[in-house]
């Protein structure tokens, strides 16, 4: 970050008040570049609160599933209620609220991974999210997030740094999420509409002049980048890209975040990593079955993702979507029609390059002796194996071992 800022502002230090020519050149430059290096995009979606994997990718072929969850289990496919699981492969099925994802499965775009998660035994949301975002289970001192380590490792030549788009990594969140914390520059925004200076045109220009003149330090450098980014966004005007191909995004915050991610992809601002999160998964009470609380969350979740895939159309060739949640929930339902904190969970990888038509990950079973600590779905796939697979093959990261220090499992998940 620092070096990059100084590189940029070194040139700017030569510029004084009459800065038009160089400033104009830069603005053109900034907009011309990302198109030239149009590349792959990874969209990471975090389900905060520990999503109940067993009711999302339903193991309807495992008889123990129904014994453990007498009142909240999702019925077998073809159940007379009409609210059974949507069968995938005769053993697993999707929660009925995920019906919009079924066409993606049929097209070979959807790769669910089951019994996946963090090897850490923690049942703390806070610790487990931290570990999944730092990429270092049970190590709390890791200063950066793994997506930022990817960005920092990839952009190492001085020229690349100068050519980087400020929109390389964008999180739709009020603060930079842990997963994107680190030395590489990233942008956190609540919405595209908010990424603007709240002042009149004249005052915006005067503010820009304040940052473009004066000493070439960190603040002036970052300010310069900010104004570049604001201008670039204004000129690219992603808001002009209405949803295409009949995509209908839910009006929820999550749906709107995904709609804006699609706008950024389509407006060619150099996006490589996008991040959004969605809460409401901590279903200790009355989580419901085929309908109810969890079903409502899943409907919003899947409709948003399906709309994104529809909207992006052919651009999905370059896009990979990956979902994650800090851990799964207890195999057995609790006394309140809900589920308490568990261990392994499930995630989805969605994109043209996935090994489709297959639920990935070894199924550990739900018999009492097969459960983790006698209560949760056991872990058979380390989340880092999947992340490394996706980042390695989709984004072309060569050194996935530095993304996940201490992880020796390798990118062997075979999801892509």
């Amino acid at each position, binding site marked *: 970050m620092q070096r990059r800022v100084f590189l940029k502002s070194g040139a700017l230090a030569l510029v004084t008040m009459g800065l038009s020519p160089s400033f104009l050149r830069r603005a053109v430059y900034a907009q011309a570049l990302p198109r030239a290096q149009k590349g792959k995009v990874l969209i990471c979606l975090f389900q905060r609160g520990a999503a109940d994997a067993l009711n999302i990718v339903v193991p309807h072929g495992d008889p123990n599933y129904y014994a453990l969850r007498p009142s909240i289990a999702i019925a077998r496919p073809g159940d007379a209620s009409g609210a059974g699981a949507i069968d995938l492969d005769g053993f697993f099925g999707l929660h009925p609220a995920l019906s919009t994802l079924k066409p993606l499965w049929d097209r070979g775009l959807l790769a669910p991974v089951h019994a996946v998660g963090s090897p850490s035994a923690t049942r703390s949301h806070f610790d487990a999210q931290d570990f999944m975002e730092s990429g270092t289970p049970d190590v709390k*001192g890791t*200063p950066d997030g793994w997506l930022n380590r990817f960005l920092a490792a990839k952009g190492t030549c001085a020229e690349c740094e100068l050519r980087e788009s400020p929109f390389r990594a964008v999180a739709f969140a009020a603060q930079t999420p842990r997963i994107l914390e680190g030395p590489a520059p990233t942008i956190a925004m609540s919405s595209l509409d908010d990424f603007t200076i709240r002042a009149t045109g004249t005052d915006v220009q005067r503010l820009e*002049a304040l940052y473009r003149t004066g000493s070439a330090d960190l603040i002036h450098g970052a300010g310069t980048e900010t104004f570049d*980014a604001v201008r670039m966004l204004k000129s690219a005007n992603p808001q002009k890209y209405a949803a295409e191909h009949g995509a209908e995004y839910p009006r929820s915050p999550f749906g709107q975040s995904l709609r804006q991610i699609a706008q950024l992809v389509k407006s060619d601002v150099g996006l490589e990593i996008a991040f959004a999160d969605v809460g409401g998964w901590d279903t200790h*009470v009355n989580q419901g079955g085929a309908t109810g609380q969890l079903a409502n969350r899943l409907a919003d979740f899947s409709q948003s993702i399906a709309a994104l895939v529809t909207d992006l159309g052919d651009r999905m060739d370059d896009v990979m979507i990956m979902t994650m949640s800090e851990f799964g929930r207890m195999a057995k339902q609790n006394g*309140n029609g809900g589920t308490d904190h568990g261990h392994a969970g499930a995630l989805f990888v969605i994109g043209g390059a996935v090994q489709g038509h297959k639920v990935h990950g070894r199924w550990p079973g739900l018999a009492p002796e097969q459960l983790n600590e006698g209560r949760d779905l056991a872990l058979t796939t380390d989340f880092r194996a999947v992340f490394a697979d996706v980042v390695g093959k989709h984004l072309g990261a060569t050194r996935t071992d530095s993304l996940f220090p201490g992880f020796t499992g390798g990118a062997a998940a075979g999801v892509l």
Partner: protein
Amino acid sequence: MRHIARLAAALLVLMACGTAHSSTVRLTTASSAGDVAGRELREQTADEQVKHVLNRLAFGARPGDAERVREMGVDRWIAMQLSPASIDGRSTERFVARFPALAMSPEQLLAEYPQRQQLVRESRAQKSDLTASDSMRLKEAGRLSRQLLTELQTAKVARAVISDRQLEEVMVDFWENHFTVFAGKGPERYFLGEYERESIRPHALGKFRDLLGAVAKSPAMLYYLDNWESTVDSARPALVSRAPRGKSRGLNENYGRELLELHTLGVDGGYTQADVVNVARAFTGWTVEKPRQNGTFVFRPAMHDAGEKIVLGHTLPAGRGIEDGEAVLDIVSRSPATAHFIAAKLVRRFVSDSAPPALVDRVAGTFARSGGDIRECLRTIFASQEFFSRAAYKAKVKSPFELVVSALRAVSAQPDSTPRTAQMVARLGEPLYGHLAPNGYPERGDAWINTGAILQRINFGLAVAAGRVPGASLANWPDGRELAAQPREAQVDGVIRTILAGEASPDTRKVLELGVNPMAGDSAAANAKSDGFANIVGLALGAPEFQRR
């Protein structure tokens, strides 16, 4: 040239005196703060020193502060700030008294602000289905719990904005960040008011060992770093053998590790994994009485590992109880690594991100000699030539909290009693009591500055000027009222004087003076009268100059 000669002379003096130097400083600072050694070595002008101390020992100047400090003398003002009890704090207390939750014990809070999780558990014990009225109660509990946190955040901002005990507020912020806890973890927020009131504030300028001990026994830290559920490993003897009540999880190393890595020795402080395990064993039994109902510290012998432990080369004999943990706190408090780690962090906060090593060594020396006296460490810093050096002047980037508070102080804002201002601090990237990881928010400036962050900072400055921040109104700002009626040139002068402490580059002044787009050439002169006083204030608060302290 004269500068360099002076610096070289100072270096020579330093080298010649060696270790004797710091004791000289101590001798003179102890006698009278008005007679600090090395004043002739200060590179900053008298005027700069005034601004410097207001930016470092305080959260920026309120109107009139600079005049008061100048009149009193910089060194006397520093001495006064080092004795917060000598400063009237009643008006601050009157303001925060409007948040009664801040004065409550965790037990009272847990009774008055019932936890959602607790309600769920209670109703689960009685019946399996929740009724509509249960759902209402849960919703209300969620609202109250959020309100509890926003009141804590709001009070923290308000204290920093209005308290005259500015150094105390700076140090409370420093230690709350050093001993950070995360309000979002379980019932943590119920412990936070007590944590600040009883563990942090009373010791913020006191002895480090007292502070460390208060933190170690606080339900806030015991819960945050999981020590409350750390128990003797089943393979080892407990101090009192008793059938374990409920689930016994065995040893949890979380607090043991962070105590060494983040609270005392530092990550390179020379401890091993065996030390971490043995420290964790020493603290088994330091727990919280019913954290979701009562929340007080208790030592439980049945959870305590009674075996012998060796910590950093010291043997803790077998068969002891709470003394084990106390002994560990004594050992780490006296370690030279801790003296150095704390000294470096203080110097980074008060002097510069690069933390001049010679000063760090002297402060560490003060720490060791004074038995970890925080006030004496600060005295050493404030008496140092590094503190008043040219290199240190405006060298620090403001954290979001510092930015918000300094802007509100600059325009003489009233404290906000709504959650709005605290939300703005969060939006700028520093949600108060909201740092998830135990390392706290960064003390270094570069961590706060990135694309997007600048945008938020600029928009914050504009919001203050536009009257969108409760409590901040240009009409209630005496200088502002006066300036609003004056010609433009006088307004620019006034804004530079009051908000930018008289320090604006010629370019900045030019931009503020022009009422037009400075990049559009002279054809845009028609816009010259298009803006008013509030625009100038907004530009100044959003300017790069205001991001530094």
